[in-house]
């Protein structure tokens, strides 16, 4: 280390030379912290998103590296949130990438005491079969002499973090099947 760089590494010198007289800025950085980079610095791309918790609708920037979400921060562009997120919104990274998420279908047979594994496509086939059967069993052409053209055989209750497009397909598909017991958190 030369004298010059030795001098420049001295915090007192840096406070004076870097215009940080109170030593609360760059002068206080250690060599380690000086080399730290925010985890968003080398993200491959940023995707614009919206917080999935409450209905304020804060903007989120989703940082992606190697096809994995590495950070979620508030979007400063949003005129609603101006870059801010609350404790819940700030936990979005954990919500979406944390180890509490399940990634495999689980199946419990009638009377079963434990979960079993099940292939996703098989599960979809089984569910489609159950819907068709229950729909038929609960079918009503008439109710108290009036035409109703419906099924009481199955019901649906949706959360309010569903996208509009998802809600639209729920209502469209289940109504076309004749189901009327279609409900949502919006009444809860």
């Amino acid at each position, binding site marked *: 280390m030369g004298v010059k760089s030795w001098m420049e590494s001295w915090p007192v010198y840096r406070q004076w030379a870097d215009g940080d007289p109170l030593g609360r800025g760059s002068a206080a950085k250690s060599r380690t912290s000086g080399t730290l980079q925010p985890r968003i610095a080398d993200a491959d791309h940023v995707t614009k*998103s*919206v917080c999935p*918790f*409450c*209905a*304020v*609708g804060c*903007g*989120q920037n989703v940082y992606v590296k190697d096809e994995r*979400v590495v950070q979620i921060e508030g979007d400063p*562009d*949003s*005129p*609603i949130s101006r870059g*801010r997120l609350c*404790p*819940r919104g700030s*936990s979005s990274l954990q*919500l*979406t990438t944390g180890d*509490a998420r*399940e*990634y495999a*279908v*689980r199946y*419990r047979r009638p*009377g079963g005491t434990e979960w079993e594994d099940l292939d996703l496509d098989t*599960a*979809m086939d089984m569910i489609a079969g*159950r819907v068709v059967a*229950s729909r038929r069993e*609960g079918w009503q052409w008439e109710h108290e002499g*009036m035409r109703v*053209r419906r099924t009481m055989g199955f*019901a649906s*209750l*949706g*959360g*309010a*973090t*569903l*996208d*509009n497009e*998802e*809600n639209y*397909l*729920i209502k*469209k*598909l289940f*109504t*076309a*099947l*004749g189901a*009327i*017991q279609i*409900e*949502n*958190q*919006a009444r*809860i």
Partner: protein
Amino acid sequence: MAECHPVGFQWVMEAKARGATVIHVDPRFTRTSALADLHVPLRAGTDIAFLGGIINHVLENERYFHDYVVAYTNASTLVGEDFVDTEDLDGVFSGLDPEERHYDFSTWQYEGGEVQAASGARYQVAGERVEGKDGSDGPRSGVREAARGEAHGSGGAGITGDFETDETLQHPRTVFQILKRHFSRYTPEMVAETCGVPMETFLRVCELLEENSTPERTSAFVYSVGWTHHTVGVQYVRTASILQALLGNIGRPGGGILALRGHASIQGSTDIPTLFNILPGYIPMLHAESSTDLQTYVAAEKAEKGYWAELGSYLVSLLKAWWGPAATAENEYCFDYLPRLTGSHSSFETVMAQLEGECKGYFLLGENPAVGSANAKMQRLGMANLDWLVVRDFSLIESATWWKDGPEIETGEMRTEDIGTEVFFLPAAAHTEKDGSFTNTQRLLQWHHQAVEPAGDARSDLWFLFHLGRKIRERLAGSTDERDRPILDLTWDYPTKPMPSHPGDDEPEAEAVLAEINGWDGHGTPLSSYQQLRADGSTACGCWIYCGTYADGVNQAARRKPGTEQDWVAKEWGWAWPANRRILYNRASAAPDGTPWSERKAYLWWDADEKKWVGHDVPDFSPTKAPDHVPPEDATGVAALSGTDAFIMQADGKAWLYVPAGLTDGPLPAHYESQESPVDNPLYRQQRNPVRQIEPVVHPADRFQPSGDEPGAQVFPYALTTYRIAEHHTAGGMSRWSPYLSELAPTMFCEVAPELARERGLEHGGWAHVVTARNVIEARVMVTDRMPSLRVAGRVLHQVGLPYHWGPNGLVTGDAANELTSLVMDPNVHIMETKALACDIRPGRRPRGPDRLALVADYHRRAGITERTGLDPAVGGAAGKDGKDGT
């Protein structure tokens, strides 16, 4: 607001920094109270008395905005001679059938005409229209129960006849004079007695609000489910509407009544409803009695004046979106493909249908009723009687695992081996893993883009629905059964995109679904406005109020021009329904002559040179209709609105201080006690809402308590309310599995005042158990002044506060508050009463195993609870008091 919508609250703080006064009215002291100028604690369940008191103060002291009231409200309209108010019937309105628990609404109408509901129970009039047509005897109770409350929630009204008005507001039957008499008993003394708010505090609130509601200034109300989760929830909001209309605070910048909704797209879930009673865009679902064919349906439900006159266009366009080429004029655009209602089919009725074995299958799509719904045990009992259950969520929530480790397994009420329900748990994709739009609390659609693909078996609900529909259609292909036509004729050919990490699997294009929601004309060109919709089958549109969100083939919801590069209205961020209007009824921001009420509050005004409305927002009015426009006598629909009919979706173009049709429980709000209350109603002999919805669910696990002065009520001496905190999200499905949030708020707790802690021997940080007629739960005790005891009805009343975020699963666990709540509901919208109950609280943990049931049974015995407790029919009038013989 600082707890549940913290980032939205920054704007309240901005306003405060600019001189606004912030008043927080809430039973508990929260982070909102800490930052407010004034915190007003009141007894849970008494907001109508509080707001009614302010209305009385405004009227008595002539502090209303006179010119606004005369021009834009129905204050001057005369009500028919048959109407009798609560003042003369001891707490109920004319038309009550106490046995059947419903009102005959005919006496509530205006003099000289019949008015269709603005938003609410339109069938009140629809039924009569059908009656005239087919000779039936009008709507039966099933129609009344069908929650038409949200139908036409975006407005809408029909009107016939000429109403008499008196613009001097002096005629005794004007709405204005009725209002004065009705609220005259809501005095400051009565507010103090009922709400526990000292008179001087109450009068200060009145003064602050009144002096801030003028041509120069506006006041806003913000509420959440603290107002709606009551047997009189709709009337809470009505009371605020009356007050804000009287003060001239609607349709003006800085004014309004803002419902802060709790979930990312809960507004969207209402607009594009996964709700039983409405079709997309608040079009009422078909009802068996009044929906025999398209023409009859439209005639019964449409309005003569305003934008709901075009109901037929909205519905036919929806049918074209769903059934495409199969929907033709000859088959009434497949109108008959739509299933019909015969009553209420809310999730609570569904529980009963499950217990009865009628409903055999259940989809839970991002929802956790085993913790999040009122009387959670009822939800689990229902699920235990299903053939099959599909749960789609991030983690193994309680609604997925109750068969294995639910509370009833511990008490011995159920044995896992005996439960026949087949359970499919399918992992869901996160918002970062799919494209789609959320509609936020201010009706703003915002698009979120996919950042990465979901891993493993996780999939979007869009994927799930699309492929489920595809597989069902494959199974039924070739069927000649008439019942299968709707599913086979359905347009279900959405374009898909491959998922590289899941070879052979395709994700439907969310933007293609949005394009269908927006709609297109006969050439497939995207529509830009709902005014383009036609009833002749030439347009298709999945949700008429969202028409324009894909105008010019551009995803308007994905617009993200930075806020710093726009004016304060920020019209180029996302897209607000309808027509990207940011403040509804903004015509009212100008005086009748089209000039702003004041320079300071100028928002929309008439440009006489340009002959159009100009300003900061898209006009919520015909853009070139002059302020002095008088419609021709025979005009209908939009053309029938005058240049001062600012409330364009209403039957008469006016804000309604009095509701002649549309509500099931009265044309005016009245304070009733909650189903279970430690207090006798100080205002009327009628204790509870006489038409509250309580009968459909009668079950041993859903018993009610005696109230007020009834024998046994003293067994549950404390008021109980439930709420949320900043660190957790609703029933916890998105927060109890998060290490950060779990660390911030690690356990279920109850908040009690020091006086209550002394009375019951509760220790701060120790355990307590809370008991209602439904169940007993345990919680850590937080002894705090944040839940103050109040002086009510001549005595000190203690309140117990419970957050409802916890359940048995996740990183941080606790008993669910919803074990304590019951299935009694608001009669308009079927929402349950979870914000005002009565309870007991004792030190120590709750008993385990069968002893838990024994403890609740002992409370039943001590309080004399039977299956009839709290169910007795409303008596009303001078004949007696509802609930007096409750045990």
